[in-house]
């Protein structure tokens, strides 16, 4: 093993936590739950709750810009809301704007550099829009141009050069690299099994996907052109969450219904650290600076976990 994981803190949100995002400095965490969005600082203190008061807005996914001046929240009831955050000394304030509406939003991905947001739908739909809400293209039954496959996971690379999409229909599925602005297909693979997560590995120019069949669960890393498998691993239990560090070749996975976290070498697939068990299914993971990890759990817990690499860092 080349590192270890340590739980720093638990925060209980009181309802299932489905999504989490961290800024690049890892000092805040935005968590999406059955109630809405909660932004916490590193000590677990609540800085912001959206929506306010008694109104509930169940959140499916949440992503943020590197500096956390913008948060993009995919609400389960069918919209993407942009929260423009402003920080004062002790508090956070926001301005909310709905930038996209559709009933069946499944996944979202952001390329802050290129100001693009990709949306994957539960149904047969994909879309890319600018971060101000202008739709660049959309494939959706509402437009009469539904995709063949459904349950789309999406991942934009940081530079916005490629959009990786993976479907999760039963049987054979599509994994493709698209030009985000035009939707033209740059590369593709047909995959046996449901692609349930897609994560772009920065710097290595690779893409990691989780693939499930009735009899197997695999984590597969493809080249950027999807023409070769760099490595793959099988798991006996489900991989319920997957995230990649923005700088270091590190993947973190939520494994099994007991909520185990595994740190994985993105180059080789080797487990670098494991053994931390959160006792609840991890719905999503986020990492910053290859060190700060936050897990959103089904039982409403938000776990702050440190990954401590064996390499010495001051």
């Amino acid at each position, binding site marked *: 093993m080349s590192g270890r994981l340590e739980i720093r803190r638990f925060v209980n949100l009181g309802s299932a936590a489905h999504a989490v995002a961290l800024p690049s400095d890892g000092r805040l965490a935005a968590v999406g739950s059955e109630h809405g969005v909660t932004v916490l600082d590193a000590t677990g203190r609540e800085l912001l709750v959206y929506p306010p008061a008694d109104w509930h807005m*169940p959140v499916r996914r949440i992503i943020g810009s590197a500096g956390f001046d913008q948060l993009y929240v995919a609400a*389960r009831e069918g919209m993407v809301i942009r929260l423009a955050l402003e920080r004062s000394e002790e508090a956070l304030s926001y301005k909310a704007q709905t930038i996209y509406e559709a009933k069946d939003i499944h996944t979202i991905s952001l390329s802050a550099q290129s100001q693009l947001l990709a949306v994957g739908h539960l*149904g047969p739909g994909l879309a890319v829009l600018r971060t101000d809400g202008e739709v660049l293209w959309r494939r959706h039954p509402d437009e009469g141009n539904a995709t063949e496959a459904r*349950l789309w996971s999406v991942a934009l690379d940081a530079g916005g050069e490629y959009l990786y999409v993976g479907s*999760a229909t039963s049987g054979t599925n599509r994994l493709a690299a698209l030009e985000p602005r035009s939707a033209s297909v740059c590369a593709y693979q047909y995959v046996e099994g449901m692609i349930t997560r897609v994560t772009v590995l920065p710097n290595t120019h690779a893409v990691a996907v989780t693939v*499930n069949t009735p009899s197997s669960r695999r984590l597969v890393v493809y080249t950027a052109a999807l023409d070769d498998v760099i490595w793959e691993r099988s798991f*006996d239990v489900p991989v319920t969450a997957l995230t990649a560090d923005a700088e270091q070749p590190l993947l973190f996975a939520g494994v099994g219904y*007991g909520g185990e976290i595994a740190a994985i070498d993105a180059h080789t697939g080797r487990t670098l650290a494991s053994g931390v068990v959160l006792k609840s*299914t991890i*719905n999503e993971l986020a990492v910053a600076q290859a060190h700060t990890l936050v897990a959103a759990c089904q039982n409403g817990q938000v776990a702050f976990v440190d990954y401590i690499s064996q390499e010495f860092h001051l």
Partner: protein
Amino acid sequence: MSKRVLAIGVGGSGKTALTILKERLEETYGRVPDNIVLLSLDTDDLREEDSFAGTKLNALLDERRREPEFRHVVSRPGVTMDTIFGDIASENVAPYMTWLEKDKLERILGPSERDIRGGAQQRRPVGRVAVFQRWKDPILSAITDGIARIYGEPEDQPRQLDDVRKEQSKRLVFIVGSVAGGTGSGFLIDVANLVRHAVQTNRTRWQSVDVSAIVVLPDAFSTYVNDMKDSSNLKPNSYAALREMDRFIRTHGAHLPYMIRYDEDIRSITWSTNQPLDHVYLVDTASPSAVGEFDLSGDPKTGVFPVIADFIMAHVDENMGDSMATLRANAGQHYNKEEGWMYSSFNVLTYLFPVDDVIESFSYRFLREMMARQFLPLTNRKTRSSVEDGALKEVERIFAESSIGGKVNPGVTQKAIAVTRKMTPDSIDPSWPGLFNLIALSETAFAEDYKDLDEWLAYIHDNLTPTKEGDYKHETYDEGYERLLDFGETAMDDCLGKQLDPDDEESREDGQWDRILARYRGALRQRFSEALDAALLSALNRRDPNSKMLAAARLPFAQAMVASLKAKLVEFKADLDKEYRTIRIDDRLRQINEQLRDTITWMYDTKDTKTRAILGKPEARKAQDAYIGLFYDKMQLSLHQRVYRVVLDVLNALGADEKDQDGQPSVLDQAALELENWQATLQEVDKILAHWERVHKQHREEKRQIRVRRYVTDDAFEDQLYRLPQHSGMVGSHVLGQVRGETGMVWQRKEEEDPLYYKLSTMWAQEALGPEEIARKFFAGAKDLFQIVRENVTIAERLASHSSPTGLVNYAKQVDQPFLRYNPASNGQKVLNHERYVSFNLSKANDEGREFLEEVYNTLRHQGFNVNTAAESLVACTVVEVARGVRLSAVDQFRGCEADYRRKLYEGREGLHLFPEEQVATGYEGRIESLGEPKNRLRPLAPEVVIAMGDEAKLKAFTLACAYGLIDRGRYTDKDGRESVEIFLTLNGRQMPLSQSTQVQELDPRFRTVAAEEQMARLYLNALQNFVLKATEKPGVPSEMVTTIVEDLARQGVSLGYIETPLTLSLLEVNGAINRFAEGLGPSPSEVPDRKKREADNSRRRVEQYLQPFLMEWVTGQAKDLDGNSRSGFKGSPARRVIDMGTVMHLILQEEIALLLNQASSR
């Protein structure tokens, strides 16, 4: 007091049945009793059309703060079927959603069907998804709350009881639904499971609960088929649901704890450790004889649902319920899980006197009669005329007096009455004192004001002195002229007021005379208002001195009084005007003003005269004299005119006109408007009541269509009942009269200080906002009063008047078969047990009724009926038949659904089953024919095997482990040193017992009597069950959770048998061990270096050495055992469940053998 019953309705059928039950409860008890809780759960919201005869379930707290009777079960916000599919695909929810055949459902659901909020669309999986979304809130919380409410205090529970008393003391839970649709069919088993879970969780407090299901079979919906988008699921759903239920009630028990988990929270884990339902009643649309009134086909609202409601009602009745519990205590004797004789059915016929409906009818009738009598416009000309005459006479009488009800009656009114009366009318004094006297407020005030005015006139007279007289002897005529004109001007300014318009002499106001006269209108208006108010209240509240009842037509009478009085004032004003015109005040005044102008000119022309006249007065003097005379007359006439105008204004203010000179409505118009408004409001109330009455009649007609009820009433009887003094007479006395000092209805001032604004205080309401609220309160009040009817009518006398004892007996005897078509030949050797009941109340019957029913009682009790003569309900006679002990495969509708079920199942496009056990089992069933055995055909596998088929991987692992000898028999010694033969799993050197023979013997009375081989076969089945349910891991249950779960199971008294570390055996480990063993069969690399050949040989060895022999010896019995004895194998067992286990194993082994041989040949 009624029994304690919780009735849960699932789906649309449950909702309707509960609505009809509620109607019966309100009919019998006046409202849903506190001991009864209704709970409807549906994915489709409560709509207007979900009512029956005006009764609807409450979706909110009711007026008694009772919890809602209806709960809309919808997914969490934003969750659609696509969300569920996404979560399953990403495995976030997989551990508790493995039952959902996601792929099939995903393919088949259209876009609009993916929103669960629109109902389950006849799809069972969608219904069950709704349960999983909301299992805790509202489903479990509502169930727990419902049981808590019916259970009562722990001290209420009797302790040491015999079986009958124990059964009688049980709290009853009925779960009602159909199996044909999506919601009821998708909810039924889980709701039953959650009921048991609630009871189990609270087992220290709730120990005495009986849970029954009443299941509507699909034929009930044959009339709805044309309205359905897709009716092709009705029969497949029914078969699938009944199959699953059959497995639950026949196999689940403490020895086979079956887990149902609803979400990630460990508290959502429930254990089915007993049959979830103590009784299951199936309801068809016909009895086996299916003729005439015993055919319930058609609209289920008039047949199937009412019969269910009435069946539950029979249990609700305290005494009837006890009666049924007595025989129900022995119901277990007629059930047999192994044979499947677990189902019951019933037939109910009810004779009803619909006392609640009758009370409502009486209430409407009474109120409308009262409204017409007291308040509404009189339509009969003669009556109207009589009332108007009476009112006129009253007006003439009372307004002629100086006071009315202690209030001063203004003189002007008295004078008006006197002047306008027909006989010897008074005359009018048109002089100004005479006119002034009309408006006198009092003698003193009149005297003072009159004196003031008179003194002014005297002052004027005295100061109009001509020149050369009195103090003006030395004055010149010129000076006199000035003086007199000045004085005149000043006098007019003072008396009449400053001239506002220099060109208009008449434009003088607010002089002293006006100030004296100004207060008369306001004061007289107030006085008249008070007097009129007293008169009207006296009229409105007039009662018969003997009966104390309000006189009829009070409102029209008061209105007539106002009209009469107004006519009087108008007439008086006209008379006054006529008299005033005769003295021509206005003309004379005009003339005098002209003459005064001339005289002033004359005075001016003559004012310089200095010489005396030789004869008579000088011209100047004559001019002055003329001026003085004219001026005085002018002032006198002006006063007269002013007084007259005030009198007119007063009359207008009182009512001679609509308004007074300031535009204020007159007193009489104000009073007329108030009375008119009241009448309009009460007319509206009457219209509302009339509408409600019409709707009520429609509802009664709707109820008469119910085929399993006989309403023993008719219009003539109800009319006679209504007219009884103790009914309408009594109510009338209370409402319109005075009873024990309490006045039922009285008109009062709304505010003490404001006359002529009224409220109607009744015994039902002091205040109401608008006609609808008045109508509601009146109706509620009248209905409350008419409850007395319940004491005075019983079913006994109604039956006596409608039928003969023989007739009733014969009819009761016809209720001898349940509403369930079944084939007795398919029920094995079991003849259904029939219980027959009749219930009525004898104690409150009159002589005629008692005699009638005693004869019925004596006849029926000797004919096998349990006759209860102390029913709680006085107005119902219920005949109930319950049949117990039928198996599903004998039920016509179950069998009739099988073909559609199989077809839909094997099309493979749609998931019908909600549990992995049946999903896997049906897959194997579909392959049975591939075995090519003429006697082994496609059939439903035995539930004892199906319960172990929830995980196909486990099933295969068990079978292969048996074949490879990792699972085999051996000797076991328990901790007490007792030895037994058990089935063991050998894993990594450890031997783990899987079977528990002592338990098998307890549950299977025939175990000891069968041969050793058969005993072993049964132990293998037990081992399979334990392997799947107790030994191996469950998905999503990590090892840390297991300890808690095991402790919980121990608390529930669940035996985990000889399983050492339950729920921890890893399938990976078992498969690993199997693979290692199989690979260990060789050949080794040294024997066969070529890998492919080696693998091929290994495959062949597996087949030849283990799989095939096991199959032949143990499964099919085609091979002898090691000792050379013939075997029958599992498939030769006399027990169906063992045969089925063998069949499944055969299919698994056949597949594995084919795979291995294929691998061998391809290498």
